[in-house]
């Protein structure tokens, strides 16, 4: 897997006016080929890692269900029939085959609501990791590369944010902003970028001293080019691994906030609020709370399986044993 670390100093590809265009195209072709080889070798390794592959397949299933939710749901997830109130799952006594997982306290089909809930969980989990990653990696690259006051300010601010337990901090932000999809993403990213910042900063500090960066500097490349096309490609695998592992955590955080009534709001089905609503019917209708939780558990488990698999493949230094 060392092939992926090969990077061609882009000073050669950058080209000056005197260099023929042909040479640039040639180097671009080599880069693309290397990228393709890296991808192929990555996919081969993923296929040889059964748990990561399983995780990836389950995540794809969830993703498809979330994207095509309006087309695959068997019943209306928003409007229930009170006659179906607390209807048990189809395999239990008194269940009906058209309501596979039963109904909730307002007679709404549980399966359809769980499928819709995947949209919130995956959407919030993915977007909050993306926002955190974008902020953290940009700030981390700049802080590690330039050091100075910028590094000082961001590092101290990151230390401060780390002093707050995650859930408390997110709850505080949600209390101020109120429920909502984008507010949730903001609340989770507000502190989420810190981990990406610290990782990127540390890696940039160590990459900066390596020869290929010296070479790029000597060839007269600008700081921005060095950061983006020399250092970033060499640390991006660690960032991807962290991002995957953080996504499971963000999804649990989203569900926790929804559980406490500070999620996307009451009108949109989210797993956390479904679990909270089912709590009062725990004794006579166990399915309302447990099944959305099971959907959540399987998703987070799959993300963690994929994340640990990616770590084994992309970043073996961090492997646990």
């Amino acid at each position, binding site marked *: 897997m060392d092939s992926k670390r090969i990077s061609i100093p882009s000073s050669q590809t950058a080209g000056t006016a005197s260099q023929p265009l042909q040479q640039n195209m040639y180097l671009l072709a080599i880069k693309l080929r290397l990228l393709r080889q890296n991808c192929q070798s990555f996919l081969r390794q993923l296929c040889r890692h059964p748990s990561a592959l399983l995780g990836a397949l389950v995540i794809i299933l969830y993703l498809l269900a979330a994207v095509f939710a309006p087309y695959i749901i068997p019943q209306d997830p928003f409007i229930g029939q009170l006659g179906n109130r607390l209807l048990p799952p189809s395999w239990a006594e008194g269940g009906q085959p058209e309501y596979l997982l039963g109904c909730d306290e307002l007679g709404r089909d549980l399966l359809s609501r769980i499928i819709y809930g995947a949209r919130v969980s995956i959407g919030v989990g993915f977007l909050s990791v993306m926002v955190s990653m974008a902020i953290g990696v940009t700030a981390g690259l700049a802080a590690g590369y330039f050091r100075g006051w910028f590094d000082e300010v961001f590092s*101290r601010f990151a*230390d*401060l944010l780390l*002093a*707050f*337990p*995650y*859930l*408390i*901090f997110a*709850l*505080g932000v*949600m*209390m*101020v902003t109120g429920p909502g999809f984008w507010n949730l993403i903001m609340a989770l990213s507000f502190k989420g970028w810190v981990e990406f910042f610290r990782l990127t900063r540390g890696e940039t500090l160590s990459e900066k001293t390596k020869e290929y960066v010296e070479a790029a500097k000597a060839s007269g490349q600008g700081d921005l080019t060095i950061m983006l096309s020399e250092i970033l490609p060499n640390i991006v695998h660690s960032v991807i691994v962290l991002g995957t592992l953080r996504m*499971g955590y963000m999804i*649990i955080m989203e*569900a*926790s906030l929804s*559980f*406490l*009534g*500070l999620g996307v709001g009451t009108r949109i089905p989210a797993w*956390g609020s479904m*679990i*909270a609503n089912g*709590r009062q019917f*725990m*004794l006579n209708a*166990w399915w309302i*709370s*447990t099944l959305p*939780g099971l959907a*959540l*558990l399987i998703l*987070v*488990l799959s993300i*963690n*399986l994929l994340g640990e698999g990616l770590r084994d493949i992309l970043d073996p230094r961090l492997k*646990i*044993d």
Partner: protein
Amino acid sequence: MKLARILERILVSIPIMLGIAIIVFLFMRLTPGADPVDLMMGEAGHVSEQEMEALRQEFHLDKPIHIQLYHFLSGCLRGDLGTSYIKRKPVTTLILECLPATIELALGALFIALLISVPIGIISAVKQYSFIDRASMTAAFFGISMPPFWLGIILIIVFSASLGLFPSHGRLPFTVGLETITGFYVLDSILTRNWAALASTLQHLFLPSLALGAATAATVARMIRSSMLEVLRQDYIVLARAKGLTEYRVIVKHALRNALIPTVTIVALQLGVFLGGNMIVETVFGWPGLGRLVVDAIQRRDFPLVQGAVIIYAFTFVMANLLADIIYTFVNPKIEL
């Protein structure tokens, strides 16, 4: 030199705490719709303009923000975190009332987490790739992926509703009387020799502790396993075996002592996890602790109470990190600066 290092760590945490207080203050004060007087009056009904103005003066709200910050910080130092709008009591009193319940739950969770994780971690490392290792590491993987509130609900459905083994709500039923001295029910029942209350308290404590401690048990078991595996590869373990020591002595005296060094730090840091998780677990199990107080305050937009509790949470978290550092300095013989 160890002392100097510890002193340095303590000094470093002072500006962090100051920063926390400032961030929390600015956050709460700059929030739209969080004007304390408006919120208080919303509860009290019709009040005249003069009374509003008097209240504003009383809370220093008529002064510029840096003066307000000064009053807030000096209040924090005196242990005065303001007054709750809704409960009409000092925030410090409310928090102190709830703290024993929360600490008792955290200690219970820590106890259960260590009880599960230490033996599992050791056995998994010693018998690597055995059935026990694979089964317990799979369980640990579930443990770290499981949302704590869902685990709590499953525990209630199985152990409380179906099997009737443990109660699902609160710390003690009304039928059992207990004279409170410290607020820690386990301690109080032992001090007053009230064995019925002790049994009931422990029963009430079990399920929430398990729900809160499960994720920690999983993390720590994985940690102990990996550091044990690391240690077992070292030369001095080979030497200990070559000397003819029994396997028990090799593992417990030589390997475990060294493997526990990184673990101790992780365990101290888990206090922060308990602080985050306790809001959820206390809500699920109706546990009258700090977590439930905060959740309630957030839902009712009781800003001073939230502000005070967030500061207490963050301070405790910083203290836990400090403690982890200090313990690490003492248990790790390599740190001799």
